[in-house]
């Protein structure tokens, strides 16, 4: 098959570490926007984390929100400019720690926005501290003996949680650890944008992603670790699809 770089990405070289799968997720978002023909009316909201510079990479209008506040900023933009396509791109530290309230309530309100949630089970940008999504017994800079759930509690499963929120329209967890899963991730991301175009409301796609640098692994070993550990603790699949269950 033919493959060439999408117009949804700018020419700026990505600053991400070698083998960091943030880059793959960027491409899937950019391709989806290009294929849906909405690049010229899309506003992306960057968050705080390694992906803070996404405003340099997506070929659409971008703003950058304070830590965790991207869904609130996106809500404002979408309500003021309902014809624009509005998305956020957030890490797990951003979305599932400091931004939990914004996430849950934008879902509860069924805001017609699309959230791309990159779960790499760690705080990447700040040097590898434990995140709400860090797995039990996972070693990080702030859990050097492994995450002890009796002291710091259990990981937050965002898709499972949001599937219980009546407002949320579409919630799916995907991964970018191999070609097949990347194709599935693309389909989910595109559908999340299609939903917004059709006014169906809140869509969130959680993407399991690697952080080779702070996991202390080679890019290939990081992919393997995602396979064997993350994808088992965070099962892939559709957690909510209001459209699909409407007639049940």
């Amino acid at each position, binding site marked *: *098959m033919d493959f060439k*770089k999408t117009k949804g990405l700018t020419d700026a070289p990505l600053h991400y570490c070698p083998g960091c799968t943030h880059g793959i997720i960027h491409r899937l978002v950019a391709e989806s926007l290009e294929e849906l023909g909405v690049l010229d009316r899309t506003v992306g909201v960057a968050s705080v984390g390694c992906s803070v510079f996404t405003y340099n990479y997506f070929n659409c209008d971008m703003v950058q929100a304070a830590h965790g506040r991207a869904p609130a900023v996106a809500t404002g933009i979408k309500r003021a400019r309902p014809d624009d396509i509005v998305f956020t791109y957030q890490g797990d530290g951003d979305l599932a720690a400091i931004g939990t309230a914004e996430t849950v309530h934008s879902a509860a309100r069924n805001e017609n926005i699309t959230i791309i949630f990159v779960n790499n089970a760690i705080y990447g940008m700040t040097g590898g501290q434990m995140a709400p999504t860090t797995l039990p017994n996972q070693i990080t800079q702030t859990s050097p003996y492994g995450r002890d759930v009796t002291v710091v509690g259990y990981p937050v499963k965002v898709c499972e949680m949001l599937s219980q929120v009546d407002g949320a329209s579409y919630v799916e967890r995907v991964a970018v650890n191999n070609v097949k899963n990347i194709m599935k991730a693309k389909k989910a991301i595109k559908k999340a944008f299609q939903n917004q175009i059709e006014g169906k409301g809140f869509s969130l796609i959680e993407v399991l992603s690697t952080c080779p640098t702070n996991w202390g692994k080679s890019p290939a070993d990081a992919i393997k670790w995602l396979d064997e550990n993350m994808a088992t603790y965070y099962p892939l699949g559709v957690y909510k699809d209001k459209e699909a269950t409407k007639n049940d």
Partner: protein
Amino acid sequence: MAKVTFNEDRCKGCGLCVTACPKKIVQLSNRMNSKGYHPAEITNQEACIGCASCAIMCPDTVITVQMK
């Protein structure tokens, strides 16, 4: 036949394309690019089946696949 090209100076030598290729014809070269990484290269263009697995796996959109 397919033609695979690498935007070499954008490559970070991560090797994800190497593991993704079902024909095992992608490798990291001994050269160094302008960023100081060993860029990926194709060893046997004739054996390429044009599946684009390498390009789909590349985080930095270094790879272009053209069918002809």
